[in-house]
Protein backbone atom coordinates (compact mmCIF):
# COMPACT_ATOMS: atom_id res chain seq x y z
CA UNK A 1 0.00 0.00 0.00
CA UNK A 2 1.83 2.96 -1.34
CA UNK A 3 0.40 5.84 0.57
CA UNK A 4 -0.80 4.19 3.71
CA UNK A 5 1.43 6.38 5.86
CA UNK A 6 -0.23 9.42 4.32
CA UNK A 7 -3.69 8.43 5.44
CA UNK A 8 -4.66 10.63 8.34
CA UNK A 9 -5.67 7.62 10.36
CA UNK A 10 -4.30 4.36 8.93
CA UNK A 11 -6.02 2.40 11.69
CA UNK A 12 -9.41 3.74 10.64
CA UNK A 13 -8.58 3.04 6.99
CA UNK A 14 -7.89 -0.59 7.85
CA UNK A 15 -11.02 -0.79 9.92
CA UNK A 16 -13.11 0.51 7.03
CA UNK A 17 -11.39 -1.87 4.62
CA UNK A 18 -12.25 -4.77 6.94
CA UNK A 19 -15.86 -3.63 7.21
CA UNK A 20 -16.13 -3.51 3.41
CA UNK A 21 -14.47 -6.90 2.97
CA UNK A 22 -16.78 -8.46 5.54
CA UNK A 23 -19.91 -7.31 3.78
CA UNK A 24 -19.22 -7.99 0.10
CA UNK A 25 -21.17 -10.99 -1.08
CA UNK A 26 -19.21 -13.83 -2.66
CA UNK A 27 -19.69 -14.19 -6.43
CA UNK A 28 -20.95 -10.67 -6.69
CA UNK A 29 -19.14 -8.01 -8.73
CA UNK A 30 -19.73 -4.39 -7.74
CA UNK A 31 -19.43 -1.43 -10.07
CA UNK A 32 -19.45 1.89 -8.23
CA UNK A 33 -19.17 5.12 -10.16
CA UNK A 34 -17.52 8.15 -8.63
CA UNK A 35 -19.16 11.02 -10.49
CA UNK A 36 -16.68 13.72 -9.52
CA UNK A 37 -13.24 14.23 -11.04
CA UNK A 38 -11.88 15.35 -7.68
CA UNK A 39 -12.75 11.89 -6.36
CA UNK A 40 -11.06 10.22 -9.33
CA UNK A 41 -7.93 12.19 -8.57
CA UNK A 42 -8.03 11.27 -4.87
CA UNK A 43 -8.68 7.57 -5.63
CA UNK A 44 -5.55 7.29 -7.76
CA UNK A 45 -3.48 9.60 -5.60
CA UNK A 46 -4.07 7.51 -2.51
CA UNK A 47 -4.43 4.13 -4.13
CA UNK A 48 -7.92 3.67 -2.64
CA UNK A 49 -8.31 0.57 -4.86
CA UNK A 50 -5.65 -1.13 -2.79
CA UNK A 51 -7.97 -1.22 0.19
CA UNK A 52 -10.85 -2.80 -1.66
CA UNK A 53 -11.69 -6.43 -2.36
CA UNK A 54 -11.12 -7.55 -5.95
CA UNK A 55 -14.85 -7.63 -6.54
CA UNK A 56 -15.31 -3.87 -6.12
CA UNK A 57 -14.59 -1.93 -9.28
CA UNK A 58 -14.49 1.86 -9.21
CA UNK A 59 -15.72 3.36 -12.45
CA UNK A 60 -14.86 6.97 -13.27
CA UNK A 61 -17.66 9.31 -14.17
CA UNK A 62 -18.14 12.44 -16.24
CA UNK A 63 -17.64 15.00 -13.46
CA UNK A 64 -14.55 16.72 -14.78
CA UNK A 65 -15.55 20.16 -16.13
CA UNK A 66 -12.69 20.47 -18.61
CA UNK A 67 -13.12 16.92 -19.88
CA UNK A 68 -16.68 17.33 -21.11
CA UNK A 69 -16.07 20.42 -23.26
CA UNK A 70 -16.43 19.42 -26.92
CA UNK A 71 -13.74 20.52 -29.36
CA UNK A 72 -16.15 22.75 -31.24
CA UNK A 73 -16.73 24.98 -28.20
CA UNK A 74 -12.99 25.66 -28.06
CA UNK A 75 -12.95 26.53 -31.76
CA UNK A 76 -16.00 28.79 -31.35
CA UNK A 77 -14.31 30.87 -28.66
CA UNK A 78 -11.07 31.03 -30.65
CA UNK A 79 -13.00 32.21 -33.71
CA UNK A 80 -14.72 34.97 -31.72
CA UNK A 81 -11.42 36.11 -30.24
CA UNK A 82 -9.68 36.10 -33.61
CA UNK A 83 -12.51 38.03 -35.28
CA UNK A 84 -12.34 40.79 -32.65
CA UNK A 85 -8.85 42.21 -32.19
CA UNK A 86 -10.05 44.28 -29.23
CA UNK A 87 -10.92 41.14 -27.33
CA UNK A 88 -9.20 39.60 -24.33
CA UNK A 89 -10.38 36.02 -23.96
CA UNK A 90 -10.05 34.82 -20.35
CA UNK A 91 -10.31 31.31 -18.95
CA UNK A 92 -9.14 29.03 -16.12
CA UNK A 93 -5.61 27.65 -16.53
CA UNK A 94 -6.83 24.08 -17.11
CA UNK A 95 -8.50 25.11 -20.33
CA UNK A 96 -5.46 26.46 -22.16
CA UNK A 97 -4.22 23.08 -23.34
CA UNK A 98 -7.58 21.56 -24.28
CA UNK A 99 -7.33 20.59 -27.94
CA UNK A 100 -9.87 22.05 -30.35
CA UNK A 101 -10.21 21.25 -34.04
CA UNK A 102 -7.88 24.16 -34.79
CA UNK A 103 -5.57 23.64 -31.86
CA UNK A 104 -5.78 24.82 -28.28
CA UNK A 105 -6.03 28.30 -26.76
CA UNK A 106 -2.26 28.13 -26.35
CA UNK A 107 -1.94 27.67 -30.11
CA UNK A 108 -4.39 30.52 -30.75
CA UNK A 109 -2.36 32.72 -28.43
CA UNK A 110 0.78 31.85 -30.37
CA UNK A 111 -1.07 32.95 -33.53
CA UNK A 112 -1.68 36.34 -31.92
CA UNK A 113 -4.98 36.17 -30.02
CA UNK A 114 -4.98 37.82 -26.59
CA UNK A 115 -5.92 34.90 -24.33
CA UNK A 116 -5.21 35.10 -20.62
CA UNK A 117 -5.53 32.79 -17.65
CA UNK A 118 -7.58 34.04 -14.70
CA UNK A 119 -8.08 32.38 -11.35
CA UNK A 120 -11.61 33.69 -10.83
CA UNK A 121 -14.36 35.14 -13.05
CA UNK A 122 -14.03 38.25 -10.88
CA UNK A 123 -10.47 38.64 -12.18
CA UNK A 124 -11.90 38.72 -15.70
CA UNK A 125 -14.39 41.39 -14.67
CA UNK A 126 -11.65 43.43 -13.07
CA UNK A 127 -9.65 43.17 -16.29
CA UNK A 128 -12.63 44.62 -18.17
CA UNK A 129 -12.93 47.52 -15.74
CA UNK A 130 -9.20 48.24 -16.02
CA UNK A 131 -9.25 48.09 -19.83
CA UNK A 132 -12.26 50.13 -20.97
CA UNK A 133 -11.10 50.15 -24.60
CA UNK A 134 -10.97 46.35 -24.76
CA UNK A 135 -13.68 43.71 -24.48
CA UNK A 136 -13.16 40.90 -21.98
CA UNK A 137 -14.92 37.60 -22.62
CA UNK A 138 -14.85 35.00 -19.86
CA UNK A 139 -14.99 31.35 -20.95
CA UNK A 140 -17.08 29.90 -18.13
CA UNK A 141 -16.89 26.18 -17.37
CA UNK A 142 -17.84 23.90 -14.54
CA UNK A 143 -20.70 22.13 -12.85
CA UNK A 144 -22.79 23.67 -10.06
CA UNK A 145 -19.60 24.17 -8.05
CA UNK A 146 -18.43 27.06 -10.22
CA UNK A 147 -21.71 28.28 -11.73
CA UNK A 148 -22.49 30.43 -8.64
CA UNK A 149 -19.17 32.26 -9.06
CA UNK A 150 -20.06 33.16 -12.63
CA UNK A 151 -23.56 34.13 -11.45
CA UNK A 152 -22.28 36.52 -8.78
CA UNK A 153 -19.78 38.00 -11.23
CA UNK A 154 -22.61 38.69 -13.69
CA UNK A 155 -24.68 40.32 -10.96
CA UNK A 156 -21.74 42.49 -10.06
CA UNK A 157 -21.10 43.44 -13.71
CA UNK A 158 -24.73 44.46 -14.09
CA UNK A 159 -24.81 46.41 -10.84
CA UNK A 160 -21.63 48.27 -11.79
CA UNK A 161 -22.86 48.92 -15.34
CA UNK A 162 -19.84 47.28 -16.99
CA UNK A 163 -20.42 47.20 -20.76
CA UNK A 164 -17.21 45.63 -22.09
CA UNK A 165 -17.58 42.25 -20.40
CA UNK A 166 -19.27 39.07 -21.55
CA UNK A 167 -19.52 35.40 -20.63
CA UNK A 168 -19.20 32.49 -23.05
CA UNK A 169 -21.20 30.10 -20.93
CA UNK A 170 -20.38 26.39 -20.81
CA UNK A 171 -21.73 25.59 -17.38
CA UNK A 172 -23.18 22.10 -17.18
CA UNK A 173 -25.43 20.40 -14.65
CA UNK A 174 -24.73 17.11 -12.96
CA UNK A 175 -28.14 15.43 -12.81
CA UNK A 176 -28.71 15.11 -16.60
CA UNK A 177 -25.18 13.73 -16.93
CA UNK A 178 -25.99 11.02 -14.37
CA UNK A 179 -29.24 10.30 -16.25
CA UNK A 180 -27.31 9.95 -19.51
CA UNK A 181 -24.91 7.52 -17.87
CA UNK A 182 -27.81 5.45 -16.58
CA UNK A 183 -29.43 5.44 -20.03
CA UNK A 184 -26.25 4.26 -21.68
CA UNK A 185 -26.66 0.59 -22.59
CA UNK A 186 -22.95 -0.26 -22.29
CA UNK A 187 -22.70 0.06 -18.57
CA UNK A 188 -24.44 -1.53 -15.59
CA UNK A 189 -23.69 0.23 -12.35
CA UNK A 190 -24.59 -0.78 -8.81
CA UNK A 191 -24.29 2.57 -7.07
CA UNK A 192 -22.89 6.09 -7.17
CA UNK A 193 -20.38 7.93 -5.03
CA UNK A 194 -21.99 11.37 -5.12
CA UNK A 195 -20.00 14.54 -5.79
CA UNK A 196 -18.94 16.51 -2.71
CA UNK A 197 -18.77 20.13 -3.69
CA UNK A 198 -21.49 20.11 -6.33
CA UNK A 199 -23.70 18.90 -3.50
CA UNK A 200 -22.77 21.82 -1.26
CA UNK A 201 -24.63 23.88 -3.87
CA UNK A 202 -27.51 21.63 -5.01
CA UNK A 203 -27.93 19.67 -1.77
CA UNK A 204 -28.94 16.02 -1.56
CA UNK A 205 -32.54 16.15 -2.72
CA UNK A 206 -31.87 16.22 -6.48
CA UNK A 207 -30.51 12.67 -6.11
CA UNK A 208 -33.71 11.21 -4.64
CA UNK A 209 -34.86 9.75 -7.97
CA UNK A 210 -31.68 7.67 -8.19
CA UNK A 211 -32.70 5.85 -5.04
CA UNK A 212 -36.46 5.76 -5.62
CA UNK A 213 -36.80 5.22 -9.38
CA UNK A 214 -33.51 3.55 -10.21
CA UNK A 215 -33.27 1.68 -6.91
CA UNK A 216 -29.59 2.53 -6.64
CA UNK A 217 -27.70 3.76 -3.59
CA UNK A 218 -25.90 7.09 -3.82
CA UNK A 219 -23.61 8.32 -1.06
CA UNK A 220 -22.29 11.89 -1.23
CA UNK A 221 -18.63 11.80 -0.19
CA UNK A 222 -15.78 14.06 0.87
CA UNK A 223 -12.37 14.09 -0.75
CA UNK A 224 -10.17 12.42 1.81
CA UNK A 225 -9.31 8.78 1.14
CA UNK A 226 -11.03 7.97 4.45
CA UNK A 227 -14.15 9.72 3.20
CA UNK A 228 -14.12 7.61 0.06
CA UNK A 229 -13.59 4.39 2.01
CA UNK A 230 -16.42 5.26 4.37
CA UNK A 231 -18.74 6.12 1.49
CA UNK A 232 -17.90 2.81 -0.18
CA UNK A 233 -18.61 0.99 3.11
CA UNK A 234 -21.98 2.77 3.34
CA UNK A 235 -22.79 1.75 -0.24
CA UNK A 236 -21.84 -1.89 0.33
CA UNK A 237 -23.98 -1.88 3.49
CA UNK A 238 -26.94 -0.59 1.50
CA UNK A 239 -26.46 -3.14 -1.26
CA UNK A 240 -26.13 -5.99 1.23
CA UNK A 241 -29.25 -4.83 3.07
CA UNK A 242 -31.09 -4.46 -0.27
CA UNK A 243 -31.61 -0.78 0.46
CA UNK A 244 -31.37 2.12 -2.00
CA UNK A 245 -31.03 5.49 -0.31
CA UNK A 246 -29.41 8.87 -0.64
CA UNK A 247 -26.88 9.12 2.16
CA UNK A 248 -24.52 11.92 3.03
CA UNK A 249 -21.07 10.91 4.19
CA UNK A 250 -19.86 14.52 3.84
CA UNK A 251 -22.45 16.03 6.21
CA UNK A 252 -19.76 18.14 7.84
CA UNK A 253 -19.84 20.29 4.69
CA UNK A 254 -22.89 19.30 2.61
CA UNK A 255 -26.42 20.16 3.76
CA UNK A 256 -29.60 18.57 2.50
CA UNK A 257 -30.89 21.84 1.11
CA UNK A 258 -27.58 22.88 -0.46
CA UNK A 259 -26.78 26.57 -0.66
CA UNK A 260 -29.99 28.54 -1.37
CA UNK A 261 -28.09 31.80 -2.00
CA UNK A 262 -26.01 30.12 -4.69
CA UNK A 263 -29.06 28.48 -6.25
CA UNK A 264 -30.90 31.82 -6.35
CA UNK A 265 -27.92 33.51 -8.02
CA UNK A 266 -27.83 30.80 -10.70
CA UNK A 267 -31.59 31.05 -11.24
CA UNK A 268 -31.34 34.84 -11.59
CA UNK A 269 -28.56 34.86 -14.16
CA UNK A 270 -28.93 31.58 -16.08
CA UNK A 271 -31.53 29.28 -17.60
CA UNK A 272 -31.36 25.73 -18.88
CA UNK A 273 -30.36 25.28 -22.51
CA UNK A 274 -32.66 23.10 -24.61
CA UNK A 275 -29.64 20.86 -25.23
CA UNK A 276 -25.87 20.88 -24.99
CA UNK A 277 -23.25 18.83 -26.72
CA UNK A 278 -20.98 16.99 -24.26
CA UNK A 279 -17.69 15.56 -25.31
CA UNK A 280 -18.08 11.85 -25.73
CA UNK A 281 -21.61 11.76 -24.33
CA UNK A 282 -23.21 13.57 -27.27
CA UNK A 283 -26.15 15.94 -27.03
CA UNK A 284 -28.02 15.85 -23.71
CA UNK A 285 -31.30 17.72 -23.24
CA UNK A 286 -31.50 20.41 -20.55
CA UNK A 287 -28.02 19.59 -19.39
CA UNK A 288 -26.34 22.98 -19.47
CA UNK A 289 -26.89 26.62 -18.65
CA UNK A 290 -27.03 29.76 -20.77
CA UNK A 291 -27.42 33.34 -19.62
CA UNK A 292 -30.97 34.36 -18.77
CA UNK A 293 -32.78 37.11 -20.71
CA UNK A 294 -32.10 39.61 -17.97
CA UNK A 295 -28.38 39.14 -18.57
CA UNK A 296 -28.59 38.98 -22.38
CA UNK A 297 -26.29 42.02 -22.69
CA UNK A 298 -23.49 39.89 -21.17
CA UNK A 299 -24.14 36.83 -23.30
CA UNK A 300 -21.18 36.38 -25.67
CA UNK A 301 -23.26 34.05 -27.80
CA UNK A 302 -25.76 36.86 -28.48
CA UNK A 303 -23.18 39.61 -28.78
CA UNK A 304 -20.87 37.90 -31.22
CA UNK A 305 -21.27 35.62 -34.20
CA UNK A 306 -20.69 32.08 -32.98
CA UNK A 307 -19.68 29.77 -35.81
CA UNK A 308 -21.25 26.82 -33.97
CA UNK A 309 -18.42 24.55 -35.00
CA UNK A 310 -18.97 20.85 -34.53
CA UNK A 311 -15.86 18.76 -34.80
CA UNK A 312 -15.75 15.02 -34.42
CA UNK A 313 -13.27 13.85 -31.79
CA UNK A 314 -10.04 12.52 -33.26
CA UNK A 315 -10.32 8.89 -34.27
CA UNK A 316 -7.74 7.78 -31.74
CA UNK A 317 -9.51 9.51 -28.86
CA UNK A 318 -11.65 7.39 -26.57
CA UNK A 319 -12.50 10.05 -24.02
CA UNK A 320 -16.19 9.42 -24.58
CA UNK A 321 -15.85 5.84 -23.39
CA UNK A 322 -13.67 6.94 -20.49
CA UNK A 323 -16.17 9.63 -19.46
CA UNK A 324 -19.00 7.11 -19.52
CA UNK A 325 -16.93 4.69 -17.47
CA UNK A 326 -17.01 2.06 -20.22
CA UNK A 327 -13.24 2.12 -20.71
CA UNK A 328 -10.47 2.49 -18.16
CA UNK A 329 -7.90 5.16 -19.07
CA UNK A 330 -5.16 2.66 -19.84
CA UNK A 331 -7.43 0.77 -22.21
CA UNK A 332 -7.41 3.71 -24.63
CA UNK A 333 -5.05 2.87 -27.48
CA UNK A 334 -3.11 6.12 -27.29
CA UNK A 335 -2.90 6.36 -23.50
CA UNK A 336 0.60 7.21 -22.35
CA UNK A 337 2.04 6.95 -25.86
CA UNK A 338 0.58 9.52 -28.24
CA UNK A 339 -1.57 11.01 -25.46
CA UNK A 340 0.22 12.34 -22.37
CA UNK A 341 -0.35 15.39 -20.16
CA UNK A 342 2.27 17.24 -22.22
CA UNK A 343 0.71 16.31 -25.56
CA UNK A 344 -2.95 15.57 -24.82
CA UNK A 345 -5.12 14.22 -27.61
CA UNK A 346 -8.21 14.11 -25.46
CA UNK A 347 -9.51 16.27 -22.65
CA UNK A 348 -9.29 13.61 -19.93
CA UNK A 349 -5.52 13.93 -20.07
CA UNK A 350 -5.53 17.73 -19.64
CA UNK A 351 -7.13 18.51 -16.31
CA UNK A 352 -5.83 17.10 -13.05
CA UNK A 353 -9.43 16.05 -12.46
CA UNK A 354 -9.48 13.99 -15.65
CA UNK A 355 -9.31 10.22 -15.23
CA UNK A 356 -6.50 9.78 -17.76
CA UNK A 357 -4.30 12.45 -16.17
CA UNK A 358 -4.96 11.13 -12.67
CA UNK A 359 -4.14 7.63 -13.75
CA UNK A 360 -1.10 8.74 -15.74
CA UNK A 361 0.31 10.62 -12.75
CA UNK A 362 -0.49 8.22 -9.94
CA UNK A 363 -2.05 5.03 -11.15
CA UNK A 364 0.79 3.12 -12.70
CA UNK A 365 1.83 1.36 -9.53
CA UNK A 366 -1.48 -0.40 -9.08
CA UNK A 367 -2.17 -0.82 -12.78
CA UNK A 368 -1.48 -4.49 -13.05
CA UNK A 369 -3.65 -5.34 -10.11
CA UNK A 370 -6.53 -3.24 -11.30
CA UNK A 371 -6.23 -4.60 -14.83
CA UNK A 372 -6.41 -8.09 -13.45
CA UNK A 373 -9.36 -7.17 -11.33
CA UNK A 374 -11.28 -5.85 -14.33
CA UNK A 375 -10.51 -8.91 -16.43
CA UNK A 376 -11.59 -11.40 -13.84
CA UNK A 377 -14.44 -9.37 -12.47
CA UNK A 378 -16.34 -7.95 -15.43
Amino acid sequence: MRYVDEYRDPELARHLADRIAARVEPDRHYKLMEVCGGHTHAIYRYGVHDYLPESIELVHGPGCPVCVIPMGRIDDATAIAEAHPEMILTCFGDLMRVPGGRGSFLDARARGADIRVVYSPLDALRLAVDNPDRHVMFYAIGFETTAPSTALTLQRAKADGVTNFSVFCNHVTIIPAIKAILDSPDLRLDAFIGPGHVSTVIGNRPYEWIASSEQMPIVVAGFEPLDLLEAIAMIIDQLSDRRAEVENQYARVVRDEGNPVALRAIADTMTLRPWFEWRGLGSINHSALQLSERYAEFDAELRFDVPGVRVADPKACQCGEVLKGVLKPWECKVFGTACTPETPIGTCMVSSEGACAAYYNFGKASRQRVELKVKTGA
Partner: protein
Amino acid sequence: MCLGIPGRVAEFDDINPHLAMVEVTGVRRRINVGLLEDERLAVGDWVLIHVGFAMSRIDEEEADRALEGLRLMGSGFDEELAQLLETDPG
Protein backbone atom coordinates in the same frame (compact mmCIF):
# COMPACT_ATOMS: atom_id res chain seq x y z
CA MET B 1 -11.66 23.72 -9.45
CA CYS B 2 -13.50 20.95 -7.65
CA LEU B 3 -11.45 20.93 -4.48
CA GLY B 4 -11.94 23.89 -2.22
CA ILE B 5 -9.03 25.74 -0.66
CA PRO B 6 -9.49 26.51 3.05
CA GLY B 7 -9.02 30.04 4.33
CA ARG B 8 -9.77 31.97 7.52
CA VAL B 9 -11.72 35.21 7.52
CA ALA B 10 -9.43 38.00 8.76
CA GLU B 11 -11.54 41.10 8.16
CA PHE B 12 -14.57 42.31 6.25
CA ASP B 13 -14.58 45.10 3.69
CA ASP B 14 -16.06 48.32 5.17
CA ILE B 15 -17.94 49.22 2.02
CA ASN B 16 -18.89 45.91 0.44
CA PRO B 17 -20.01 43.31 3.00
CA HIS B 18 -19.63 40.62 0.33
CA LEU B 19 -15.87 41.05 0.33
CA ALA B 20 -13.51 39.84 3.01
CA MET B 21 -9.78 39.50 3.51
CA VAL B 22 -9.16 35.82 4.02
CA GLU B 23 -5.93 34.24 5.18
CA VAL B 24 -4.86 31.32 3.02
CA THR B 25 -1.72 29.46 4.10
CA GLY B 26 -0.53 32.60 5.86
CA VAL B 27 -1.19 34.98 2.95
CA ARG B 28 -4.05 37.48 2.92
CA ARG B 29 -6.25 37.54 -0.12
CA ARG B 30 -9.52 39.27 -0.94
CA ILE B 31 -12.38 36.79 -1.38
CA ASN B 32 -16.04 37.16 -2.24
CA VAL B 33 -18.15 35.79 0.61
CA GLY B 34 -21.54 36.70 -0.88
CA LEU B 35 -22.59 33.08 -1.26
CA LEU B 36 -22.43 32.69 2.53
CA GLU B 37 -24.55 35.75 3.35
CA ASP B 38 -27.03 33.56 5.24
CA GLU B 39 -24.27 32.14 7.44
CA ARG B 40 -23.48 35.20 9.59
CA LEU B 41 -19.78 34.74 8.99
CA ALA B 42 -17.50 36.26 11.61
CA VAL B 43 -13.82 37.07 11.75
CA GLY B 44 -11.96 33.85 12.59
CA ASP B 45 -14.37 31.56 10.72
CA TRP B 46 -13.01 29.06 8.22
CA VAL B 47 -14.36 28.79 4.69
CA LEU B 48 -13.70 26.65 1.59
CA ILE B 49 -12.81 28.78 -1.42
CA HIS B 50 -13.52 27.92 -5.05
CA VAL B 51 -12.33 30.26 -7.83
CA GLY B 52 -12.29 33.30 -5.55
CA PHE B 53 -15.59 32.64 -3.76
CA ALA B 54 -16.17 31.22 -0.30
CA MET B 55 -18.55 28.33 -0.96
CA SER B 56 -19.03 26.72 2.43
CA ARG B 57 -18.31 27.40 6.05
CA ILE B 58 -16.20 24.71 7.71
CA ASP B 59 -14.64 24.14 11.12
CA GLU B 60 -10.97 24.29 11.90
CA GLU B 61 -10.47 20.53 11.85
CA GLU B 62 -12.02 20.33 8.40
CA ALA B 63 -9.76 23.18 7.27
CA ASP B 64 -6.69 21.28 8.45
CA ARG B 65 -7.81 18.16 6.66
CA ALA B 66 -8.61 20.01 3.45
CA LEU B 67 -5.24 21.74 3.42
CA GLU B 68 -3.38 18.52 4.10
CA GLY B 69 -5.39 16.85 1.36
CA LEU B 70 -4.54 19.59 -1.14
CA ARG B 71 -0.88 19.38 -0.27
CA LEU B 72 -0.83 15.66 -0.97
CA MET B 73 -2.89 15.96 -4.13
CA GLY B 74 0.07 17.44 -5.98
CA SER B 75 0.67 19.50 -9.03
CA GLY B 76 -2.74 20.50 -10.39
CA PHE B 77 -3.71 21.86 -7.03
CA ASP B 78 -0.42 23.62 -6.30
CA GLU B 79 -1.13 25.62 -9.42
CA GLU B 80 -4.59 26.56 -8.23
CA LEU B 81 -3.26 27.60 -4.84
CA ALA B 82 -0.52 29.68 -6.45
CA GLN B 83 -3.09 31.40 -8.65
CA LEU B 84 -5.31 32.11 -5.70
CA LEU B 85 -2.48 33.77 -3.87
CA GLU B 86 -1.16 35.72 -6.85
CA THR B 87 -4.34 37.36 -8.05
CA ASP B 88 -6.76 39.74 -6.39
CA PRO B 89 -10.27 39.89 -7.78
CA GLY B 90 -11.13 42.91 -5.62
